[in-house]
Structures are given as C-alpha cells and as structure tokens.
C-alpha cells in the first residue's frame, strides 16, 4: 500500500510535467496548426531562466573570511548579502520561485518573437516542413545554451524550507515513515494550478472564447471582423510561457542541462498524440495517465514480471492506443490525418 501511494505520487509528478508540456504543444497546434518541435527547447529555456536568475542573484564579491583567523582567507560573498544582510540571503534562498517573475516576461517575449519571426511563415507549409524547421531551431537553442552554460547539469536547489520531505503517510493515515519531497508536491500543485488557469482562461474570458471559436472555425471568426491572427500569436506566447514555467519549477527536481528539452519533447509528443491531436483535455489526461503508468511499471514487482517494461511502457501504451483508437483518446475527426 505504501509503495503504491509513493508510486502514485511519483506518477502524478511526472505526469504533471508531461501534461504541462503537452498542453503547450496542443495549444500551439490547435490554434496555429503548427507542430512545434522546439517546444522542448522552450521547457529547457524555462529551466535556464531559473539557473540564470540564481546566477544573477549570487553575483559575488571576494571578501575576507572572518571565521578563519590564522591566515588571510577569502570567500565569495554575494552582493545581495552585503547590501541587505539576512534579507539578501533569504532572497537567494528563494531564487527558484522568484525566477518565475523573470521567466514570465522572458518566455512571453521569446514565444512572441518565435511566432512573428519564424512560425508565421510556416502556416501554409506542410507539417513535415514545420517539424523540420522547428527541429533545426531546437538544435540551435540547445547549442547556444550549451555554449553559455556548459554541458554539465547545473544544480538549482529549492528553498531550504521545502527542501525536506513531507510526512504524507500521516496525512493519509498510513505508516508515518512514509515521506515524499515537499518540492515535488509543490510542483504537482503548481502544475494543477497552471492547467486550471489555462482552461479557465479559455473557458471564462472573452479572449478565450474568441480563441476557441477560432480553433473551431478560423474563417468565420475572421469574417466577423476579428483579427484572429493576433490572438493566436498571443496564444502561442502563452504556450511558450506554460512550457517555460514548467521548466522553471522542474529545475530543483532535475538539475537543468542543455538537452533536457529534447528528452521531454519526444515523450510529450507521444503524450499529445495519445491524447489526440488538438484536444486540450486529451493532452492533460494522457500526460497524467502515461506518467502514472510509467512509475507503476518501474516498481520492482512489475519489472520482475516483465523485465524492461519500465523503459518501454510509454511507447507500448502509445502503440496500443493508436492502433485501437485511431485518433488517440480524445482526438477530433479529420485533424492531422493527411
């Protein structure tokens, strides 16, 4: 029972990351009809927002280390600590959550530039060409990041308060030794919040209503005198933002390196397709489903029965679902079948 709860949480956690990335992919696809292979790179850029924010906060000055009295020792002391003392230390400690403030404008801007600068010219091109050009872009982003940050993963710790583990066992009335990292719980809550925010935005605002109308019938919305193109550009920027935020919050779980985006991209594409191209609820459901299945498959009981199942479960499920349900779980008819 304990093991099952832990694996369920693990799965929800992984699923949350998949769902967030898949959500952004589906938004871009459903509105602009663009298959964005650079979406994983946006996730990675988000994580590097956290890294660079942390680096900016900890720009340091060499000061004399007072604790060592035998000889003159120097240590790096961040300017923030020198200026503001304990407040500065606290700010540095909260670098990751605070970097969201930086990530929001940065990711929106990147999304906007990407759409206006490149994607816009590819509406009328074939899906294969869209895949290829964004794939090229992803390689470029990845290499630029590697040039500036190096090839090694950069540890980006979560704030001290939440770096420990939560006693989830007590909460569920199970064994009290059952613990789970706080930050992962926060990540889960955060992604649920983002997902609901996106859905609420599309469901309850006028802007969202127009966007949904545009997804259903772009031409008619245009005939009504609405500049649907402009709104779709904003939606693309939002999709970039969602991917970026997913990346920022993922940084403490997995130290970011330059190819983390690609690793997630392939899986998220599988997630999107399993959910059904163009279906937002489908993407989220498939994300959580595949995340949970993957973590259950990695339990020792399961992998001793079917060796290697944890490595391939996602692809296996994808193959079965696609063969049984041609358009994925919730795909619409006629989307992406030519």
């Amino acid at each position, binding site marked *: 029972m304990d093991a099952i709860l832990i694996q369920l949480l693990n799965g929800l956690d992984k699923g949350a990351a998949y769902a967030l990335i898949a959500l952004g992919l589906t938004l871009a696809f459903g509105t602009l009809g663009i298959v964005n292979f650079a979406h994983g790179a946006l996730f990675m850029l988000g994580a590097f927002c956290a890294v660079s924010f942390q680096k900016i906060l900890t720009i340091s000055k060499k000061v004399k280390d007072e604790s060592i009295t035998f000889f003159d020792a120097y240590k790096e002391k961040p300017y923030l600590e020198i200026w503001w003392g304990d407040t500065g230390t606290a700010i540095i400690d909260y670098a990751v959550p605070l970097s969201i403030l930086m990530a929001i404008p940065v990711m929106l801007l990147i999304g906007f530039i990407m759409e206006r600068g490149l994607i816009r010219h590819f509406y009328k091109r074939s899906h294969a060409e869209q895949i290829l*050009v964004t794939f090229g872009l992803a390689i*470029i982003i990845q290499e630029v990041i590697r040039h500036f940050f190096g090839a090694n993963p950069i540890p980006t710790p979560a704030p001290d308060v939440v770096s420990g583990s939560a006693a989830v066992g007590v909460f569920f009335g199970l064994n009290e030794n059952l613990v789970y990292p706080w930050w992962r719980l926060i990540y889960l809550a955060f992604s649920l919040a983002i997902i609901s925010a996106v859905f609420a935005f599309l469901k309850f605002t006028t802007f969202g209503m127009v966007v949904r109308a545009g997804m259903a019938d772009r031409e008619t919305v245009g005939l009504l005198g609405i500049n649907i193109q402009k709104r779709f550009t904003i939606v693309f920027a939002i999709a970039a933002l969602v991917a970026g935020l997913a990346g920022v919050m993922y940084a403490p779980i997995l130290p970011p390196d330059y190819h983390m985006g690609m690793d997630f991209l*392939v899986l998220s594409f599988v997630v999107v397709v399993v959910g059904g191209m163009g279906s937002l609820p489908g993407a989220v459901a498939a994300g959580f489903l595949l995340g949970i299945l993957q973590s259950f498959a990695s339990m020792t009981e399961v992998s001793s029965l079917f060796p290697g199942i944890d490595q*391939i479960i996602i*692809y296996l499920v994808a193959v079965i679902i696609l063969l049984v349900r041609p358009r*994925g779980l919730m795909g619409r008819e006629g989307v992406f079948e030519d």
Partner: protein
Amino acid sequence: MMKNLIKSNTVIMLIFAAVVLTAPIWTAPIGANYPDLLQKFAIFGIFAVGYNILFGLTGYLSFGHAAFLGIGSYTAVWSFKLLTMNVVPAIILAVIVAGIFALLIGFLSLRRSGIYFSILTLAFAQMAYSLAYSVLTPITNGETGLQLEQQDPRVIDSMFGVVVKDGLPSTNLFGTLMSGYSGFYVAAAILIVAFYISLKIFRSPFGMKLLAIKSNQTRMKYTGFNTRPYLLTAFVISGMYAGLAGGLLASIDPLAGAERMQWTASGEVVLMTIMGGVGTLIGPLLGAVIIKYLENIFSALNKSELTEIFNYMPEWLQTIVVNVTNPFVGEGWHLTLGALFMLIVIFLPGGVMEGVDKIKGLFGFGKKKSTIEGEAK
C-alpha cells in the same frame, strides 16, 4: 533525342558509377579523399537513398529508421561472431533481418497516416533503443556495445581451418580486408547497385503508384485501389536499405551500439534527405555527402586552427572573426548543422536539388514549368 539519351537508365548509371568509383580522385582537392570519410559517404548515401524511397515517394515521414540501421549492425556483428568473418553472409543477413523487422513495424505503423504514423515509428524505434540498453543486454551487450572476441566460435571459418592466433580477426571479403580503400570500393559497389534499384523503382509503375498515393491517397482508394500493400512494400524496401547500411557499417568497423538506434540518428537521415532534396533521385545521396563532409570539417576545427586560417586578416578583425566563428566549430558543430538546416528548410524546401534547378533556370536550360512536382528527375 539527345535529351532522351541523357535520361536513359544506362547512361545515368554509367555516369553515376564513374563518378562514385573515381571519388578518391575528385575528392582530393576538398581534402575528403581518405577512406574513412569516403566509406561514410557511401554508407550514409545508401541509408538516405533507401529512406527516400519511403519518404520521397509516399510522403510518409518515418522517425524510426535508425532502428533498422541498428538491427542491421547487430545482425552483422553476430554473423561475424558466430559464422564467419566474411562480410557477404553478414550483409545478406543484416538485410534480411532488418527486412523482417520492417515488415512487422510497417504492418502496424501503416495502419495510421500523418503524424500518427511518425509517432508510431518513433515509438517502435525508441522501444528498440531502450530494450537494447536494458533487457536485451545478452544480445546487444548494453552500453558497451557488441564487440568481437577472440574466442568467438566462427563456425564456418573454423570449418575451413582459419585460425586466429593473436588479436582480433578482421572482416574481409573472400580474403580482401575491409579496411581502407578496399572497404570503400565494396561500399561504393553496393551503393551503385542500391542506386540502380532505387532508379528502377522511381521509374516503374510501382513507383508511380507510390507517387499517386503521396499526392492523393483518398482518391486512390476511391478508385478501388488498395494502397496498404504498396506502402508496406515501400516501407520494407527502405527498411532493408537501412539494414544494408547498418551491415556495412559493422563490416567496416565490427562494432554495434544502441546509440545508432536513437531517434536523433533517425533525425539525421531525415536531415540528409531534406538537405539534398526529397523525392529526387540523387538528392538524398548529395545530402548525406554534404552533411558528413561538413561534420568532418567543422567538428575537427578548434580555436587555434581558426586563428591560423584567418591569419591573413588584420589582427583586430581576426580576433572578432575567430570569436564569432568559434562557437560554430568543434563541439559546436551541431549549431552549424541546425542553422544550415533551418536555412535550407526556409529558403530551399526542395533542398540542394531545387537550388540546382534554380541555377539551371537562370541560365535558360532548366526544366519547363510544366514539370510535375515530385516527378522522378
């Protein structure tokens, strides 16, 4: 009359064979005339030419062809270990086994089209890759990669009394070692045959049917035509080409690792095909040569060599140029690849071949505008 002569199969093949076999000579001025690189040109050329039979003719974008390359490599190495160091059985087995896998994967994947097909092939390839790393370690030797060992049985070799005294045995073709130029000529001969088959397919009724499926599959079906067997045949043929390339890779360097099956490797062959020109006969081969050549040049450079190259400039300019170009070479070669790739897709979606056509058009002896798109050139 003259035009027809130039376009006849025999003439094309003669020219092609002459160009390929003299490659060691005409690549000398660009510094590519060493066997390792030439072998790579030929092998990845075969891979891309085969991939083009699927992608170029039917328009089905497969993201899993590297799996067949990997399977071919593993089969060939096992043939060296168990049967003989001769490359002929190894390559034949590699093609057959890759073909069987292509039949299975193609049968399932081709039930869907569009991006669903792409993702299915990707899923199968990733499964093969993950399994090769984990559960199938007894067959694939996991991360280390499959290697030859001195005490391998080599049944056929030992029947003929070939004894390996010290060190590892080398692959050979009836006694000729597969290293250096002889390796290249074997690969080149196979490339010529492979190219001939692809030419025949492009110009056969079968190829025409594949093109018809590409331009409008629904209409083909409405005329009472079952497209599935044709697609499957194309898929299996291109899978066998990939297996052939994998077998050749293993023949020249008897090693097989799972990283050959990763999806980035599948992406590479797509790159080559697009770079050269999808659906053209010679394009994919050109793409493979260009990418492998540039990779070879760019990834070998480093900062001090750049400084030397730009030595003729005034010092301040040299510093700027070196610093700007530095991220693009050595380990940053992928940056160049990405940039080049984006430029090609944006400005020349038809690849290098489209560029050639445009230049021809400028000088007034290009094709007429009425050329059907995707027609065998």
